[in-house]
């Protein structure tokens, strides 16, 4: 499917927002959240640039499943590290183990449903963490109300990640055309929610 000019503009704006977040949006945090958010938004930025350069064909690469896992994993790790001190070690281990599991199950040809289960569990836990944690913290008054927007971004990234991953595993939830049609807009809206939530939250 050919990429339209509007798609390229939306992806460019997504990249700009991700770059803004990397440069000024995550200052005054401790080392691990800075590293995690830099990787998460960095992958978003580089992926946006590559999509602009190579078109939607870039999504045919087998590494897309792995790359689309990095964003929710790193963003959720940053959130947990900042706001759930007692879960830091456990979640760091989950991040490393699940990422390695995704790489392994995508690298070794397996006939069973293990690759799909691995992706579903990884995206499910990371996505739910990004979705629920900011909203719960906002409702409890631990963070300003607008921090809940990060949760909305989390919901969107969960949807995007699952759509892409299941497309790549050969069991698409929506048709390829539909996914590609909504993907640039979804990425931009998701990034807007993240950047706004982090800035005002």
């Amino acid at each position, binding site marked *: 499917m050919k990429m339209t000019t509007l798609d390229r503009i939306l992806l460019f704006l997504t990249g700009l927002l991700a*770059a803004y977040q*990397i*440069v*000024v949006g995550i*200052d005054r945090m401790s080392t691990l959240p*800075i590293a995690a958010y*830099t990787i998460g*938004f*960095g992958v978003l*930025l*580089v992926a946006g*640039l*590559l999509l602009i*350069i*190579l078109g939607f064909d870039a999504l045919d690469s087998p590494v897309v499943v792995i790359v689309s896992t990095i964003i929710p994993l790193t963003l959720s790790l940053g959130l947990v590290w900042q706001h759930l001190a007692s879960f830091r070690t456990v979640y760091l281990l989950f991040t490393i183990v699940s990422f390695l599991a995704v790489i392994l199950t995508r690298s070794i040809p397996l006939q069973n449903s293990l690759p799909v289960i691995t992706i579903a569990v990884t995206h499910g836990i990371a996505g739910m963490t990004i979705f629920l944690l900011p909203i719960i913290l906002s409702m409890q008054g631990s963070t300003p109300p607008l921090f809940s927007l990060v949760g909305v971004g989390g919901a969107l990234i969960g949807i995007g990640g699952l759509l892409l991953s299941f497309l790549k595993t050969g069991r698409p939830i929506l048709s390829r055309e539909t996914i590609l049609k909504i993907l640039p807009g979804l990425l931009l809206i998701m990034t807007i929610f993240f950047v706004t939530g982090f800035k005002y939250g």
Partner: protein
Amino acid sequence: MPILFKKIRLYWPLIKSTQTGLLLATGIAGYLSAHFPVNIPVLIGMSISLFLAISGSTIMNMWYDHDIDAKMKRTHKRPAASGELSRQEVYYVGMAISVIGIGWALSIAPLFGAVVFAGWFFDVVVYTLWLKRRTAWSIVWGGISGAMPILAGRALAVNSIDFIGTLLALAILFWIPTHTLTFSLKFREDYSNAGIPTFPSTYGDNFTRATIAISSILAAVAIGWASVLIGLSAGYLRLIAVLTAGLLLLAFATFRVHTERANFGLFRYASFYMLISMIILAMRAF
């Protein structure tokens, strides 16, 4: 008046506006990277003189290479190659613009003018007149020439050739092969028809792809090192690191995936990378 517009329309393709614009951007970034208070009149004078000198050298290249341009599909419509402009006219325009540009640069600051002249000399005399038709390694001199604008901009700001300026120049020098070698892979037939020795025709595709990947990595190292020494904020360093990681991954990917598409992806990303890096270096001034 219509004649003037017609001439401008004919002369404009002679300067390869995108390439000239990118080289000019590197010169401006080199000047602004010194993070001194920006002297607007000097910045404007530097930009115009640099633009003229780069344009002049490009026109001289078009003048000398009109015969080989005519043999290549990609370039045969250029005004000097197609005969829209006479060779003599192209020569006079190129020399006039070169002399004005270099003269203006020398009047701004002798060191700046000397570096600008060096860039012109390496491009026109060493690369175009002497080596381009003899050896595939001529691209090194083309690269050195392309590295002069950023060095000139930096030299104008700090009034010396400093280590940071040298690193920035090296970054451009190593970035240029991603451009020229990708083109030599993509348009191999053209170069073959014109009898121009290239890396693919001399050393093969694998060596060429390896050279592209290695030079991209070296360009990234030079930009990263210069960025740290310039004193970019942690945020901008993070951004450079992220973009560099993308470049390195693509460079490694070209080792594994031997396709023109992969190479062209790396070439385009490297161009993006260089432009964004220049903008980041320039923003340090504000």
